[in-house]
């Protein structure tokens, strides 16, 4: 069912219900996969124990002058003569804003056994979100649609947002309503206008937002294995380019792609972001590990 017929049929309650069911059916799958992915990272990489209600014990330190009497931990202090202060883990939650490209260009895979780029992007985004939520952070989307919140319900909302495809071919990064000094994660193929990306990053840098650019590419976009007379069309159909000898174009296409990558990297270096490249034929696990570390080392804690 295409989106257009969907909106027409949605006037009838039964159609709406059926449509909602089919839309919702994909949600648990994405959630489950993302949780599975996130669970593996949690177990394998960190083994970080989560405290009950969020106030983690950090250390006991001797009480110094200036400490409030109320801060003294009597239970510890009673064992000896010295007074101790119980320090808790520094727990100011960060806000992380995701932007996962929902444009039509992401709905592409060159082979049946490869996932769509959009699938991989959403999976990575959601898994990262789960990890962050478990870490106690607040996660949301850039823009005004879903401001950062904490808790498992936010994961559900994120998953719901991720099921909505955008109609336009190359979606520009959403850079509105960025929270100052927050973190951001942009996942896209960055095939669209580079100026939009530059604008978004500059704006983010202005507000002290740092983060990660995740560049997702299909293997065929790296290899350009085409020959003969070909009309290339964008997935949405808005762009097309005809060539008589596709094989002749390969070198120049690869040059342009490399230029695009280096420009993104330069942009990231300028704004203090991190740049990551992921191919859909690689394992999502490694990408998630990289992502999580990139966000981690960015000073989340």
């Amino acid at each position, binding site marked *: 069912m295409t989106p257009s017929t969907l909106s027409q049929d949605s006037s009838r309650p039964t159609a709406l219900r059926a449509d909602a069911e089919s839309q919702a059916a994909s949600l648990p799958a994405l959630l489950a996969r993302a949780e599975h992915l996130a669970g593996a990272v949690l177990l394998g990489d960190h083994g970080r124990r989560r405290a009950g209600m969020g106030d983690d014990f950090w250390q006991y330190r001797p009480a110094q002058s200036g400490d409030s009497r109320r801060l003294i931990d009597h239970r510890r202090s009673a064992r000896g003569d010295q007074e101790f202060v119980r320090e808790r883990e520094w727990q100011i939650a960060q806000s992380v804003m995701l932007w996962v490209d929902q444009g039509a260009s992401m709905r592409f895979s060159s082979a049946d056994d490869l996932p769509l780029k959009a699938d991989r992007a959403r999976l990575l985004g959601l898994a990262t979100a789960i990890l962050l939520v478990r870490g106690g952070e607040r996660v949301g989307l850039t823009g005004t649609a879903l401001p950062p919140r904490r808790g498992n319900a936010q994961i559900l909302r994120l998953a719901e947002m991720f099921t909505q495809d955008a109609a336009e071919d190359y979606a520009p990064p959403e850079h509105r309503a960025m929270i100052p000094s927050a973190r951001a994660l942009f996942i896209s193929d960055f095939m669209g206008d580079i100026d939009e990306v530059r604008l978004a990053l500059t704006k983010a840098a202005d507000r002290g937002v740092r983060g990660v650019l995740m560049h997702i590419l299909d293997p065929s976009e790296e290899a350009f294995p085409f020959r003969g007379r070909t*009309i*290339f*069309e964008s*997935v949405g159909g808005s762009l097309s380019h005809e060539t*008589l000898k596709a094989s002749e*174009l390969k070198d120049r296409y690869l040059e342009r792609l490399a230029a695009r990558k280096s420009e993104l990297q330069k942009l990231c270096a300028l704004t203090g972001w991190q740049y990551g490249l992921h191919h859909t034929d690689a394992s999502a696990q490694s990408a998630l590990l990289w992502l999580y570390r990139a966000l981690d080392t960015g000073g989340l804690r």
Partner: protein
Amino acid sequence: MTVLGGIGFTAPWLLLALLVLPVLWLILRAVPPAPIRRRFPGVALLLGLKDDETVSDRTPWWLLLLRMLAVAAIILGLAGPVLNPSEDQAQGDGPLLIVLDGSWAGATRWTEQEEAIAAQLTRASRAGRTVAFLDMARPEPPVFQTADVWRSRLPGFRPAPWQPDAARAAQAVSFAAAQDGFDTLWFSDGLDYPGREDALAAFESRGFVEVYQTAANVLALAPAGFEDGAVQLTALRAAAGPEREVTFQANGRDPAGNASILATASATFQAGNTIATTALALPSELRARITRFDLQGQRSAGTTTLADDGLRRREVALITGSENREGLPLLSPMHYIEQALLPTADLIRGDLRDVLPANPDVIVLADVATLAPAEAEQLGAWIDEGGMLVRFAGPRVAASDVSRIDEDPMMPVRLRSGGRTVGGAMSWGAPKKLAPFRETSPFFGLRIPDDVQVTSQVMAQPDPTLAARVIAELTDGTPLVTRKMREQGQIVLFHITATADWSTLPLSGLFVQMLERLAVSTSATRPSVTQLEGTTWTPELVMDGFGALRDAGTLPGVPGPDLLNAPPGPDMQPGIYASGDRRLARNVIEAETTITPVTWPVRIPVKGFAVPPEQPVAGWLLSLAILLLLADVVASLSLSGRLLGTVNRAAMVALAVTAGVMTPGTGHAQTPQADLFALDATAELALAYVQTGNQRVDEMSEAGLRGLSDTLFFRTSVEPAAPMGVDLEMDELAFFPILYWPITPDQPRPSSEAYAKLNEYLRSGGLILFDTRDADIARFGAASPNGRKLQDLAAPLDIPPLEPLPADHVLTRTFYLLQDFPGRHASRDVWVEAAPPDAEQVEGMPFRNLNDGVTPVVIGGNDWAAAWAVTSSGAPLVPIGRGFTGERQREIAFRFGVNLVMHVLTGNYKSDQVHVPALLDRLGQ
């Protein structure tokens, strides 16, 4: 049809279309291949890129050539090319006479000849000629008919097992003379025969004569002889030629009764020689089974020779009354019989009881009067089965009372006592001579030498049956040889001794001939005409021209002399002939037969059978065109890059297929199902459910355990494999730590063997989770059908006393801390094994110090499977409760499942916490 360069074309004008090919070349070259539309997000990077060459990708020259070839093949194919176009018959269009020799000599190549004739008929039919056939071996007045009529009758012609002869040739000449004018096609067998020249002259006087003849030499097989203990085989060939080896085959029945080749022998025609001989030594048992000899690779009556009694040697047992006179061989009662039989029979000597198990053909008793009752009984049985008992009289028989008053079963007639002596010194009268044999006698036709005299004999008692039993008598009418049939066998009595004491018969040649006639012996040489005088032989099996034997049916018998003298023909067909017990083979080739090759005058054109047939090649060309076009499709696709995905997939499929083929059989194909089940169940830990036979319940159980397995996998270090259904009757239970058993009112009650297995399972530490799935509304009363069924099912089980799950039971803390155990329903009542009555809660302890071991059963009605059930994608299958509390209930249900599995796997480990205070106490000191 136009012939161009040896190839005929039915539509030659179509070839002009070949001129279009260069034009087509130019057109195809100018048109670029069609573009492919391809979705590619990277197009944004391509925008603005210009092609280096403004010319389009031209179709490569080899692809063009491929297409040109395809078009050329189509044009050529449609023009109707024909290979070997046969030229029209040069002999005009009058009637055509096809003459066949039709003898056995052509049988081996009969099918080739038939094909050649069919080809000639096709040509005649095309030329509109009428055709007649004249078979020289069986001449009949020729009838001219259209060739098509003859073609359908062509398979009816069969080679005759004889040669044309002068008389038949003369007949053919007369038939030819009756016709006006015709051309002749003569299909010769390659052998000359009398009258052929005359026939050729007659045909030539009527028109053109053309001879078709195979170049192969004609072979023949002379009758097999028996000499020097071996079968002598002789092969003949018509024309002397280079050295050539032939292989003889001895055909017969193997011990199982199937026709087979019993032996082979090879012989060599020396260069320039027309005869090849060899000897084949065989054991007599094997030799007796041979029915015919033939030549390998030949299939005609001439290369088949039938074996008859000449090769068969009978086993004759000789038994005398007493052998007390050593060193006097000439006086031995058996001497003359031995001498008569030695060349032609295998002799056995010994006691009667030793001889009988060898099952001889004939037993000769010389002057044996009485037989022991046991011997008589065995001998009688042997005779009844077809044995032949030949007795000779003598002094003991004459002196005994055997067959005196009553006819002895082992004697053909009653005997008078004493016998008589004639022509002796003390008696009147001259020695008696033999009277000529009567027609009913088997000896009829034998010449009686003058010097055969009988001086003594035993006398037969006159009797009503006597006359019928006499087969030889003296001139005064007294019986000399009598015979009695008994069941399938016979008893023959010579009223004289086997020695020369009583008569001179054993000294004469007549004695040997008489034994032959009685089939006591078989002659080594073929009987002479005089020996066969007066006999009539009926055909049993006759041969056709191919050498195949068939039943003679109602063919009339032939006189004995004809069997040897008359040439083979319709009245004297080759085959097996029988007279009485004797069998004689009449072969196509007799010992004195010679075969001579035919020589045709030089004016007669002689051709071989092989005529290269016309071969239309249009179909081949059109197929080639299609193949080329297919290749063009593949090539075009690959050129334009569209083949890429397909090729990859195809290559993978091919690889997979190859791998599948190459992989040696892994595992054991013969592994029983039970073993496979055991392997599956034990490879990894698996949760199991009892199959109830209700499909919905079983599916729900599986989905529920799948959900629980996933939960365990995700949350704990227990990583179960996919859940398995268990058939209580068939499957082994010991592999599973836990069985989930949903109760349905209609499930069958397990058999007593299954209950034995279940009890064993419970005793060895297994756990069964019974689920009545009815929210336990009846509290295990009889009111709920599921509850009743549970009581019924569990009655034979070895279940300890139960109690509702106490608050301090280990199930409440094996992994999660739980107070409730909900499934789809949230009833609190779950029953487990009761704690021992002496378990008392100690002050200050959180729970009692309970027994070790795992409760063997957990009984509840909360329909846990439904709460656990997930689809294959991991989504919950059944809605639980309402809203978020429902989700909470599902979560608690999962936790109960985790606790349960942990309880099964770890036992009462968590109960050990009861000792924590004591441990702390000890640490403190």
